[in-house]
């Protein structure tokens, strides 16, 4: 059987034109997806059933036992942390928010360690953006800043920018210019029309210089700014001003380097400035296929995109205090539920030391680095493969992922709903 128009649950591009060939409830071939997506669709080595740590060993337990364990853990915790959420569907994220509210926990998603600073910048100056199709059909200038789509979002170039067809571009490949700004010559830089190489940590200065040039203050620019020559800066600024439609896509190279959210703020203000001359937009290259959905769900349900603390009953948001890394580093939380992410692979050592000391339940189809820290792991269906549900693309477009095969695994939503029901029952007693 071939499933058409399947939705790839890997990165924020959320490609929805995938063809998946299924035989005997196994994926045997994947067409249209990139290497990352294909690997995910073909992925095997899932955990067979829930496991419980028993001394140095793992013991198989039933799903009911695992769910009961998690519910009891959360109910008896004083300050539970519910973390992850970017690798699951929106319906599960909604249940997660209700659970956090019920146990007065902290709920945070992976954006606190990726595009969190971008969100802080947006909260200061706003976000002039657009859907990916607007760029595809109109943009004659695309800038990748601190992002390397060839490795991280392989089909971004072919679906939306460099190699995409565009309604208003006669010969899109020739008429569309691509600028890459980075500290090293990446694969993406090789296919750019202009490569701007910045000394590490110099992004803020380069953005400020471009803003000055766009404002007509060229005479204030020194001979070089963070390793970029004045001539090149002027050339880039002119390319921007003369474009009919420009689009900036930035990645963690801008968000997580020196300056952090100030870099993003500066980039957004450059785009707002350019909007007085021509059409310009800016957007983040979001990582997980549904990290943006997690921000959206949290926002409509609690008012904030990530890092929400319910310990006072109300939703309280203070990134740097109510975000997962901080709650762990301060050894504050006394239990953790991890859903759809792998913090052990990404968090600082100090956080992991604390994670090792507290009860942890993880919902994840595969054994991962966090498994080593778990007391219980519940393997679930993979959204987009054996579970369906809503995901939000990096530009905010919501798409319902398809189920391409059937398995006995429960979805995240089903597991969490059962957990939440037990918790509600216990609270009513």
């Amino acid at each position, binding site marked *: 059987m071939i499933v058409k128009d399947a939705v790839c649950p890997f990165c924020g591009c959320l490609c929805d034109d995938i063809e998946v060939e299924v035989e005997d409830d196994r994926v045997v071939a994947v067409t249209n997806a990139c290497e990352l997506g294909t690997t995910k669709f073909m992925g095997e080595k899932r955990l067979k059933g829930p496991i419980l740590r028993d001394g140095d060993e793992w013991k198989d337990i039933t799903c009911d036992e695992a769910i009961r364990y998690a519910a009891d853990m959360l109910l008896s915790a004083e300050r539970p942390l519910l973390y992850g959420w970017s690798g699951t569907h929106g319906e599960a994220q909604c249940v997660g928010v209700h659970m956090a509210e019920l146990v007065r926990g902290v709920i945070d998603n992976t954006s606190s360690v990726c595009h969190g600073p971008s969100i802080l910048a947006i909260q200061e100056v*706003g976000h002039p953006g657009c859907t990916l199709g607007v760029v595809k059909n109109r943009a004659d200038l695309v800038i990748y800043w601190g992002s390397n789509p060839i490795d991280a979002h392989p089909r971004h170039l072919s679906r939306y920018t460099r190699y995409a067809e565009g309604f208003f571009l006669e010969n899109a490949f020739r008429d569309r210019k691509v600028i890459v700004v980075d500290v090293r010559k990446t694969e993406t830089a090789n296919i750019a029309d202009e490569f701007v190489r910045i000394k590490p940590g110099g992004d803020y200065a380069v953005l400020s210089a471009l803003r000055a040039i766009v404002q007509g203050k060229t005479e204030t620019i020194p001979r070089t700014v963070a390793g970029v020559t004045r001539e090149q800066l002027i050339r880039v600024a002119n390319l921007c001003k003369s474009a009919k439609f420009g689009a900036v896509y930035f990645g963690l190279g801008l968000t997580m380097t020196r300056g952090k959210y100030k870099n993003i703020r500066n980039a957004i203000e450059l785009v707002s400035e350019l909007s007085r001359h021509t059409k310009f937009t800016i957007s983040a290259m979001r990582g997980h296929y549904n990290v943006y959905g997690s921000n959206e769900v949290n926002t409509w349900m609690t008012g904030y995109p990530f890092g929400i603390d319910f310990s006072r*009953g109300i939703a309280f948001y203070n990134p740097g205090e109510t975000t997962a890394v901080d709650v762990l580093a301060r050894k504050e939380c006394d239990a953790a539920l991890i859903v759809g992410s792998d913090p052990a692979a990404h968090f600082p050592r100090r956080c992991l030391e604390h994670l090792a000391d507290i009860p942890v339940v993880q919902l994840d189809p595969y054994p991962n680095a966090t498994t080593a820290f778990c007391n219980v792991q519940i393997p679930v269906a993979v959204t987009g493969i054996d579970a369906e549900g809503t995901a939000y693309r990096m530009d905010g477009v919501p798409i319902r992922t398809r189920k391409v095969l059937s398995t006995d695994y429960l979805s995240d939503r089903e597991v969490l709903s059962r957990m939440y029901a037990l918790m509600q029952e216990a609270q009513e007693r």
Partner: protein
Amino acid sequence: MTELLVKNACVIDPLRGINAETMDIAIRDGKIVEEVSDAAEVIDARGMLTLPGGVDSHTHICGTKVNFGRYMSPEDMRAGRTPRRGPLHSTSGYSVPTTYGNSYRYSVMGYTTLLEGAMAPLEARHTHEEFIYTPLQDTMANTLFDGNWGIMEAIRDGDTKRVAAIIAWTLRAVKGFGVKLTNPGGTEAWQWGKNVSCIRDPVPYFEVTPAEIIRSIVEANELLGLPHSVHLHCNNLGTPGNYTCTLGSLGLIPDLNKKRQTLYATHVQFHAYGGSGWKDFCSKSEPIARFVDMRPQIVMDMGQVMFGRTTTMTADGPMEFNLYRLHHEKWSNHDVELETGSGIIPVIYRRKNLVNSIMWAIGLELALLTKSPWQCLLTTDNPNGAPFVKYPEIIALLMSKKYRDAEFATIHPDTAARVPLPAIERELDWYEIAVMTRAGQAKALGIQDLGKGHLGPGADADVAIYPLRIDEVDPATDYQKVIDAFSRTEYTIKRGRVVARRGECLIDGSNATFWVRPKVSENYDMGKDPDFIEKFDRYYTVRMRNYPVQEEYLNRNRCIETEARI
């Protein structure tokens, strides 16, 4: 079977011509019935003012831009928050509350039906997801067609039936309710950083004018037999002198429908400005009201501005950019491929600001100068003019000259020379307020036959009982009592259950979503049209099969089928 009897209610039910009669309301299984058994639970309304549940025919509560308003505004989220309590979830936000915040606060004010004013088709799923978490009101969404490529091409080709066919396909796909035009043509021009100044400017590339878009889509709307008329946010919002553009747009509209208006012009306050610039900015509410008085085919809503902080959000991207250049606050914009766009900025309307003072006066003038309350409905274009929690104050202002004068004394002193408000003596009565907040809104939306906006047998049992005796309160002088009563019902009843009592919501409900499926002939099924399919595949970034909103996204599914004439 559950039964409820509301006794001794002082009922105003304009759709049935009932004006302040003391009567009982019988409810069985969520519907109003003739009578109930003795076993029914009884609520003694003790002569309190009892109205059909409130209907808001233009509000922004759910969807991409509303949520982005929250996302970018933690300061607004902090400005209003309540903890989880009993069956109620926590809420955050003042001008753009979380979905639960919207739902609980509207419910406490007696509102039971809400129309989201602007849903981009491509992002419709998001609106429907948020509807699920708006539990205490029935919901429906106006769907944006202002910059739709397929439609503009069909208009250029003079093919109104194809326009109708594209609307039909889209409404069905995105589970939309009505047709919304926001700055028609302007949202497409804005994707090049441009705008259209009024109805005669051609849209870049497509070479159709806003006037052609409006006229053609109005015709298409009637070909499809949709319950609601076209819902128009005119071009040129917010600029001095724009009233001529507004009159020009309203003048395009023939009278095509016997049951309701042919055009719903929204937040007309923002479109009723005189002057050649900000220096001689003034009210032009009079010519607009007079124009509407003579045309039964037009219904408008106020779009009242109230002083204080709020967040503006609209599909009108270029207007928001202009506002950003005036206010220098944070600015967000979100263009949507092949369809529309949106913009958001926070604003503060100040009494000490002359322009803001004039805007405040214009909204009130529109309501007071328009003869029929059925033609000027009460809204703030929530949250653009003010958050909806200000409705009770607006009601009181419309009912009391004394209150208006007291407020007028606190605003910019030059306002008097620019607006007719001080000379207007009219004070609206309870019946007119009932029209402007529920009956008129239900009629304009075309949902009275679906049991909304009235209390006749067969209607949905949505009832608002306010703690106020109209024979004891003189609204002209006791305006604070009017504000208090409309801020907090004694009982709000939704689908036959008491959902709010004296300012507290009592249960977690489950809403219904109304949407429209026009039945068109095979030839006009765009799902099978090769040209439509080809363009979709080439220029959208979502596959056509993944575009429609599945029925899983509808809590209670109220599909309205219409017989289209194509």
